[in-house]
């Protein structure tokens, strides 16, 4: 369908907005311009999504441009063609995420127009956030790993620019740097994965028939990789075997784990929390889910890598537990938000790891909306209370009603009503291995226990945050007029309402057991997420799983009850003021991950000291001994260090030039003497 070419506009419109914003004199106009372009991008994404929904069974659409191409003469070694393409790929997965991310970018930017008024780097925020929008929407629409890599690294770079908005604050700059270093690790892991995949499937791709309109089958394309994995398992690909698939899977999973803030890589998102709230929101809602999206894109590799799936599930589950535990022990609302985002994405990883492709993707998809909702609410609360310490908040239900409603909706969705826990448990209990095998009983039991624990802890985290902030009265503190606490202006409430509606709607389309909607003769399969986005040729049979629903409800109830008992109105004052002890003390410190990163950088600096002193003590004296002889020779020239020196030099130059000219003329036969 030609209309799918409009998908190009989804990433390009924000980029155009960024460029246009540079040409506008007024900062506010520049911001509004970026919002307008992001809005257009969302509209186009929604149209493409709508078209795709009505043609859900059609083949994916690709539109490609060649970025570079060469034919390596060593074709037999790794590939007959080195061709890197950029473009757009329209299928159910890509358009769903493109629309979700374009929406989140739009809402956060619209919120920031008012929230960041008068803040440092207002124009830079909109310019960089639009470039980030280009990278994130471009990433989800990318047709191959090369294009994905470009936009993945581009997202890291634009996030760094966003994080450096308040560059006069030394701590913000330090956090931006650390976040960028950690994201660079994920960039390098993805680069390695892309290189490794090309090496392994380069020759194989040259044997495949070229798609229509192409000269060769793109070796980086997801389709070729998928075919390559299948062929490898049937011993059809030279120099590649199950071990290579495993290595490939591990490398991609490292990249994805870092990006989707799996423990202990939560540090980079925590670093973004020290920046402005809209920056934090963009990082949490549009960048972090890309990790899971990457896993979904290269799912054939992960699914067929020996024993990779259970490990993936355990990593996700463990990360969700640790992140939620960390969040429960925090007093900073931004830190709690970081942990909430990380634990939700962890549940998505659990689902993907236990073979639940559609559920896992759905969790990542809804996390875009729930994270937006959470972060906008957090932004309002920090603005109203002028602190990020939840111990200094309270009474929001009375004083800050809209934001409290948003927080309550988020708490219910994150706590379990958002289906994250249900789908993670449903995938674990059904345990359908997409590679055709079965998960062992012990694997399923362990992952189920971890998932239930994670779900309960997430519910406790959400409940604690909700109760601490909304119940009781506004905490009194020196220099703060608690009686002047009031709801934010309507311009900041509107995006919040939109985010509430979108988050609820996003969850509703994934309700289990929901049948396709019939509109006249048309059958809109896309209105049930699981029937629209799936792995393989047919949707997974996902009905209502009673056991999973029961366990998820139990986790939700136990978490909320624990939150009420621990942080409800009766215990609130004591609970928020109490010092953490024992295991909670460890959780409060984020399991010492940040301390470990500091230790690592200190060790690196010590090594750097040794390298530097080696150069001073060993290599420099050797160089000095070489240089001394020249210095002595130069001392002879010291006699010429006067006006005569320049004349001698000039004379020599003229002689050299004339000799060179004469030689050239003589050699080319243009002089009466031919030297040859």
């Amino acid at each position: 369908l030609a209309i799918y070419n409009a998908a190009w506009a989804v990433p390009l419109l924000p980029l155009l907005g960024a460029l246009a914003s540079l040409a506008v004199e007024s900062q506010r106009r520049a911001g509004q311009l970026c919002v307008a372009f992001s809005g257009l991008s969302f509209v186009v994404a929604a149209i493409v999504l709508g078209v795709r929904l009505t043609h859900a069974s059609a083949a994916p659409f690709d539109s490609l441009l060649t970025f570079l191409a060469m034919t390596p003469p060593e074709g037999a070694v790794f590939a007959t063609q080195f061709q890197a393409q950029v473009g757009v790929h329209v299928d159910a997965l890509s358009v769903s995420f493109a629309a979700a991310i374009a929406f989140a970018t739009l809402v956060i930017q619209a919120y920031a127009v008012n929230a960041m008024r008068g803040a440092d780097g207002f124009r830079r925020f909109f310019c960089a956030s639009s470039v980030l929008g280009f990278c994130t929407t471009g990433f989800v629409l990318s047709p191959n790993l090369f294009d994905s890599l470009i936009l993945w690294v581009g997202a890291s770079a634009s996030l760094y620019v966003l994080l450096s908005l308040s560059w006069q604050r030394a701590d913000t700059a330090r956090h931006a740097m650390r976040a960028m270093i950690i994201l660079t690790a994920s960039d390098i892991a993805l680069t390695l994965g892309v290189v490794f995949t090309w090496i392994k499937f380069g020759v194989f791709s040259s044997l495949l028939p070229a798609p229509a309109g192409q000269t060769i089958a793109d070796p980086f394309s997801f389709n070729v990789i998928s075919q390559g994995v299948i062929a490898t398992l049937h011993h059809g690909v030279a120099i590649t075997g199950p071990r290579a698939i495993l290595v490939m899977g591990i490398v991609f999973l490292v990249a994805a784990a870092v990006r989707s803030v799996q423990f202990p890589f939560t540090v980079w998102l925590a670093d973004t929390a020290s920046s402005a709230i809209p920056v934090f929101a963009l990082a949490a809602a549009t960048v972090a889910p890309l990790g899971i999206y990457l896993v979904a894109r290269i799912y054939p590799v992960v699914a067929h890598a020996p024993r990779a799936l259970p490990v993936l599930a355990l990593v996700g589950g463990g990360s969700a537990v640790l992140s939620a535990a960390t969040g429960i022990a925090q007093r900073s609302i931004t830190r709690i938000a970081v942990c909430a985002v990380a634990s939700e994405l962890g549940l998505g990883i659990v689902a993907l790891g236990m073979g639940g492709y559609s559920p896992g993707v759905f969790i990542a998809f809804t996390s875009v909306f729930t994270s937006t909702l959470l972060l906008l609410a957090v932004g309002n609360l920090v603005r109203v209370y002028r602190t990020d310490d939840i111990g200094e908040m309270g009474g929001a239900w009375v004083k800050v009603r809209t934001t409290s409603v948003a927080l309550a909706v988020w708490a219910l969705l994150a706590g379990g009503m958002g289906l994250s826990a249900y789908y993670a448990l449903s995938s674990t209990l059904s345990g359908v291995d997409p590679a055709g095998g079965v998960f062992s009983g012990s694997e399923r039991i362990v992952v189920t226990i971890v998932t239930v624990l994670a779900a309960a802890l997430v519910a406790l985290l959400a409940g604690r945050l909700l109760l601490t902030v909304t119940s009781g009265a506004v905490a009194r503190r020196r220099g703060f007029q608690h009686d002047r606490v009031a709801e934010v202006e309507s311009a900041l409430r509107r995006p919040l309402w939109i985010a509430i509606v979108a988050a609820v709607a996003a969850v509703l389309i994934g309700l289990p057991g929901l049948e396709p909607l019939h509109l006249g003769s048309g059958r809109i399969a896309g209105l049930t997420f699981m029937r629209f986005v799936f792995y393989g040729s047919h949707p997974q049979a996902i009905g209502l799983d009673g056991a999973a629903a029961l366990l998820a409800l139990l986790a939700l109830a136990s978490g909320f009850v624990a939150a009420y008992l621990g942080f409800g109105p009766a215990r609130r004052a004591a609970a928020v003021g109490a010092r953490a002890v024992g295991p909670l003390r460890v959780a409060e410190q984020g399991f010492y991950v940040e301390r470990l990163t500091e230790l690592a950088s200190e060790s690196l600096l010590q090594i750097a000291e040794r390298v530097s002193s080696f150069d001073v003590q060993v290599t420099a004296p050797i160089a000095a001994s070489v240089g001394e002889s020249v210095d002595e020779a130069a001392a002879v020239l010291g006699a010429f260090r006067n006006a005569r020196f320049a004349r001698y030099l000039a004379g020599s130059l003229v002689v050299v030039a004339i000799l060179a000219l004469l030689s050239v003329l003589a050699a080319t036969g243009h002089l009466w003497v031919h030297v040859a």
Partner: protein
Amino acid sequence: MSVILSTIVWSPLLFALIALFLPERDDDQRARVRTVALAGAGVSFFVTTFFAILGQIGLGAGGGLASAYQENHTWFGNFLFQAHYDLVADGITLPLLVVVTTVFGCAVFHSWKVHERVRLYVILVLLLETAVNGVLCSSDFVLFIVFWGLLLVPMYLLIRIWGGDGARRAAAWFAGFHALSLGLIIATVAIIVVEAGARSSDMSAGLTSYSVTAETVGFWVSFAGFAIAMAIFPVHTWMLEAQSKASAGVATILSGTMLLLGAYGMMRISLVVFPTAAHYYSFAITGLAVVGAFWGCIGALRQDELRRFIGYMNVAQMSLVLLAIGAETSVALVGAILLLAGQAFASAMLTLVSGAIEERTRTTSIRAMGGLVTQAPRLAGFWLVAAASVIGVPMLAGFTGDFMVFAGSFPGHRIATVLVMASVIVTTGGLLWVANRVFFGPVRDQFARVRDVTLLDLTVLFPLVAAVVLFGVRAGAVVPVIANGVLEITTRIAGG
């Protein structure tokens, strides 16, 4: 008869001769001298870019790439062998010519900041440009040695006369190492002529058989000669010293062109003439690349002088190029050329920005700086663009080069490639940490009146930014041209 290459090589010298006869008693006269020098560098740049490289890209777009620019005339044949005035610009040479002529153009623009002995300064810069262009275009060993030798004196004088404290020592170190490098290259040519019984010093002639000893010795002698020029570990100290003590304009030429010549020579001579030994010792070369990559990026972390920091970053970047040379695959070598271009532009930008910072803050100490972004946001922006290119941010010159080097090196040297890739994380950390310490953080009182970029700074830096972006966005246009040039090397390595 095409004289494009002769024009590229000799036009700077011609304009240097014109400048020689111009007076420099007052500002107007000095401005005239600089303008003449700019014309010399401009002619070279213009001919390279608009005739040579665009012609090649056009040929590539048309489906044919066999053509390369060549001027070949017998020079002398009265000795044991014939020497030729043989200039060739193929797919490897042309992009590098664009790079060096751009950097020289910026360096000549930068001469507007030089106020003492302007005439001598621009003459030496133009003489150096002739030598650099000559090295890149030479296809005859004797001619190559002549141009390589010609690099020595102008650079020595440029470092010594216009450098800061310690410039004398830095110049001596440069001269010593460059003389050593020259000696090793002459020895290499002697080995080629004597051992292969060559009757001609033509570099493209099919030099057939060497004894194992001659091949091994010849390879390592040539490798050492070019490694010195590349400033790779452990022969990098001269570059650190020269980079930190030379004036900003001279340091720009040094990091933007001189290191590139070492890598070029290694590809052109060490790989092509001694392919068997190069292949046999590829493990050692990649090992050296790994050590150098970590040495450069880790060593940089402890530097307090801004330009010494850039010097260490150069060591790390050249190690990536060395990895590609060790890998010997066409994809890696094409990546290496792109990386050289990216490194030259980025390093030149970093050096010019650091020069501008030093000029404004009157200090070279990173510790003493801080908070400059408030007063000089554009300067900070230029630094970040250059840093982004070094890190390998997409759509900038470094990205495609990095990616192709890694892709081409991985099949043969997996562990080395992964380790070098890991070093990029430290490089990223180092560049951002310096940006934090120099530009970010609270404004310091003593720098409250620091001014942002001037029109002259913009004139010097903007072409480099444009080049970084162009090489990043349109890498695909030059890749076929470079691949065509690399073909000769890979064919020789494959035994062709």
